């Protein structure tokens, strides 16, 4: 989305801002608070600035969840070993085989 798709950055209302916020996030690598086009608006609308900071904080902390937290039970590996030793039935034919 280009600037022409957005309202005027200096005169837009908080409602406009809310409407376009998903696009601001998607187009600005997630760093809306440092977008130079929005500095005046955010300075004049502290509630919007606070919202942006909160959403950026959530997105930033979400990356920490990429590191795994949980272990499957030992049964999972036992089942995998058992099934690997069985011949494939037609139903079990991996659909991935058709993807290439």
């Amino acid at each position, binding site marked *: 989305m280009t600037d022409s798709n957005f309202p005027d950055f200096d005169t837009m209302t908080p409602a406009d801002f809310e409407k376009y916020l998903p696009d601001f996030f998607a187009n600005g690598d997630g760093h809306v608070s440092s977008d130079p086009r929005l500095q005046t608006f955010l300075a004049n609308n502290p509630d919007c600035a606070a919202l942006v900071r909160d959403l950026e*904080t959530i997105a930033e902390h*979400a990356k920490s969840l990429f590191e*795994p937290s949980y272990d499957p039970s030992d049964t999972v590996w036992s089942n995998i070993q058992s099934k690997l030793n069985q011949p494939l039935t037609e139903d079990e034919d991996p659909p991935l085989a058709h993807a290439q």
Partner: protein
Amino acid sequence: MDVQGLHMTDTKPTPALFKRNPPIAGEAEAIEAAKNGDAEAFSKLYALHKRRVYTLCLRMLGNVSEAEDMTQEAFLHLFRKIGSFRGESAFSTWLHRLTVNLVLMHLRKKGLNLVSLEETINPSEEDAPKRDFGSRDLQLTGSVDRVALERAVASLPPGYRMVFVLHDVEGFEHNEIATMLDCSTGNSKSQLHKARLKLRELLRQPEQLVQPASLQEAAR
């Protein structure tokens, strides 16, 4: 059987996932050995990747039993098709895509039709984030406890959770998510935004965050 969006080739590496999935010591050797049917190599690859695959399944499904079933399926598919991995993208990127696609296929089979159904992806009004935009006292402190965030994510409605996990946790781009969920890019952006708003609301009321049964069970 043609499965839309189920790509097992590794010809389109995703830079974001490459960065977050650096090669693991001993992994390349294990992959080559596994291609030759080495059982020990399978075991090693499982040990290296089981937590990440299971955690991904658990976050997407919110259910321990189903997450374990999907983990099992993901590794069975992986081991049976490992010969098609050519090393053009990170192995874990390849494995994550495989897992995500299997989970989505599983959800579709269950009848949770994520395909182009806004009403399915969108949660009910009750679950939607409240329109509290503009209230000044909603600002978070600038840091979020990982455990609280984990609980809040688990509390999200399934449609929100799916897009949030795929984008903010796993690092997929909106266009990739749109392809996987067969929805528009705009829909993916919108769902992500609503998910973050809902998380903001949940994180502001940590006393109301109860640990979902799935996480309690998984933590045992």
